[in-house]
């Protein structure tokens, strides 16, 4: 029997087991962390890589898409660090405090750990794991339970470094924290980063994470986020990288009462990208917007899957995603709003829009509502279509060539989504990416 079960594992799954077995003694963390890794790995070993048979992965059959596994990376060299420095420019000229990770390892000489605003503490995760940091002991792996999420388990088993960010009660972080994740090593590698962000009651912070990669990398990144009562958190994630990049990202957030969470995910690269968000509303009166935009071309595949779990009542959530799909790309959106029995007066609305620029692109949208309370306002909508020919004609009738007319309309489409970002500098930086993407398309 055992042999038969083993034979059902894919080469990638077997390779991951070997990787874990070889690496576990060297991975950072005390005994408790080692136990957490071990339990997580066993869970992964049970479920394996998610396949289409699992509903939440129906459109992104990772088991089939990830045929082989890259080895864990070595220490980053000077060239990889230089490339990482460039990767930080994904967000334009914003005045930020940068924390840089190259191939999943914190690089102090590229980072700004000094002169952080009062109340803000940042510690590399590898260090925090090794030192048995109390925040790690209290929260890591516990923020939002994700059952049978093989990729999260895998992340917990193999996590190496990342950021541990703490914002003290009532503190306002002046400059956004920019986590630069650069998988820029020469050799294709599997990179596992794990971060924990704890924003205490009444505090305010903005965290921008940007991901870029060199050829052939596989990235599995996860962030756990705790938003305290009356806290205000802006979290923006930008994903770029080459067409052979596999990028799996999980955000697990628990949000307190009367808080604000603005989340925006911007995808502009990668071969297979999965962005999953698990957001739980633990306290009343919170307002959250979970938004995002993707620009895909070629054979790119990007999947956004989110669960907004309204456990407490009186919260408002808005889930708005837009994707522009060209070539043979495929954009997947799965969104589930859960309203628990006592979460009365929940106001949740979800909208996904896809703009198809070619006949061969594909958009899959699966919005779901699971409502167990009776006094709620919930809704969802999904649209998919080509560019409006009448609008295109109107623009062309004014002398604007077809490619430029299309570009204007695509910018307008994505602009509507990007408008939700409060930070003007970041909005401009993202719009520049859109313009560059369109220029590449036209040329």
């Amino acid at each position, binding site marked *: 029997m055992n042999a038969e079960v083993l034979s059902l594992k894919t080469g990638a799954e077997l390779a991951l087991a070997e990787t874990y077995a070889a690496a576990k003694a060297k991975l950072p963390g005390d005994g408790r962390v080692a136990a957490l890794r071990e339990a997580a790995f066993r869970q992964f070993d049970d479920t394996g890589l998610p396949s289409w048979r699992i509903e939440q992965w129906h459109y992104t059959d990772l088991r089939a898409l990830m045929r082989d596994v890259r080895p864990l990376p070595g220490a980053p060299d000077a060239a990889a660090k230089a490339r990482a420095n460039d990767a930080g420019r994904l967000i334009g000229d914003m005045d930020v405090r940068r924390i840089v990770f190259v191939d999943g390892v914190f690089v102090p000489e590229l980072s700004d750990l000094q002169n952080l605003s009062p109340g803000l503490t940042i510690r590399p995760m590898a260090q925090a794991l090794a030192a048995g940091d109390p925040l790690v002991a209290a929260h890591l792996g516990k923020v939002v339970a994700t059952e049978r999420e093989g990729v999260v388990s895998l992340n917990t088993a193999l996590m190496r470094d990342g950021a541990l960010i703490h914002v003290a009660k009532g503190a306002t972080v002046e400059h956004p924290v920019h986590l630069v994740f650069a998988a820029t090593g020469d050799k294709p590698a599997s990179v596992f980063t794990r971060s924990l962000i704890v924003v205490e009651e009444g505090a305010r912070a903005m965290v921008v994470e940007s991901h870029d990669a060199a050829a052939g990398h596989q990235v599995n990144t996860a962030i756990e986020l705790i938003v305290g009562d009356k806290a205000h958190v802006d979290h923006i994630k930008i994903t770029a990288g080459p067409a052979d990049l596999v990028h799996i990202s999980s955000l697990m957030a628990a949000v307190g009462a009367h808080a604000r969470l603005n989340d925006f995910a911007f995808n502009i690269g990668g071969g297979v990208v999965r962005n999953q968000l698990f957001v739980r509303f633990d306290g009343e009166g919170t307002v959250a917007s979970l938004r995002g935009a993707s620009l895909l071309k070629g054979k790119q595949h990007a999947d956004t899957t989110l669960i907004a779990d309204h456990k407490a009542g009186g919260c408002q959530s808005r889930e708005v995603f837009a994707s522009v799909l060209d070539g043979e790309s495929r954009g997947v959106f799965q969104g589930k709003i859960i309203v628990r029995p006592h979460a009365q007066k929940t106001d949740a609305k979800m909208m996904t829009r896809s703009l198809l620029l070619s006949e061969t692109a594909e958009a899959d949208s699966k919005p779901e509502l699971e409502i167990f309370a009776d006094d709620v306002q919930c809704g969802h909508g999904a649209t998919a279509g080509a560019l409006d*020919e*009448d*609008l295109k*004609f*109107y*623009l*062309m*009738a*004014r*002398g*604007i*060539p*077809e490619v*430029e*007319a299309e570009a*204007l*309309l695509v*910018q*307008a*489409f994505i*602009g*509507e989504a990007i408008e939700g970002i409060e930070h003007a500098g970041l909005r401009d930086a993202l719009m520049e990416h859109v313009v560059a993407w369109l220029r590449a398309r036209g040329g």
Partner: protein
Amino acid sequence: MLEVKNLHVEVDGKQILQGLDLVVNKGEVHAIMGPNGSGKSTLSYVMAGKPGYEATHGEILLDGENILEMQPDERAVKGLFLAFQYPLEIPGVATMTFLRTALNAQRKARGQAELSTPEFLKLVRDAAAKLEINPDMLRRGVNVGFSGGEKKRNEILQMALLQPRLCVLDETDSGLDIDALKIVSEGVNRLRSPDRAMVVITHYQRLLDHIVPDVVHVLSKGRIVKTGGKELALELEARGYAEYQDEAALAS
């Protein structure tokens, strides 16, 4: 400047224009009047190159060159401008961006340098002021939240900026109150020049009190059935289109 010869146009497999002939010399303003369904808007769209409006016979010559095979933007660069009956709303594209992109695209296509930001802003502000357009509106999405009158003024603003040589105005008076009609007509009249021709398409004579045409044509069932001076418009206003509908029926 404009010669339309034996133009037949099909829309959705239906023959709308059936042998339309029209000659407009530069400096002239021609009015095309006709009942609903006579093909007035089809004529404007086929001139501008709207997809789905297929010329099955005939040609449209602009300065002797057949424009039927050209893309809409190429026609615009050649100097054709259509003021839409129903200007479209484009959320997310600021009016300023739209105007600037259009103007610079045309300049570029003609081998002229693009306008600098200050040059462009001055041009737009002056033109907008003449049409009593509040500059704040230009920051909004194209025609988004504009009233019917504001949309039409925005069309004339585009016309003033782009300085076309042939202007086609499709039912520019529809949806306008008397004050807006005056502002729009004055805007159009300011653009009358010996080098520019205009084709004013309208159902009612009212607009022609303000934009006085040199020639009036009656369009019925896809062809021009009568041509006369400006007094023809008054005649139509008094007597209606009934007799021309019969005339076209007899002719076909």
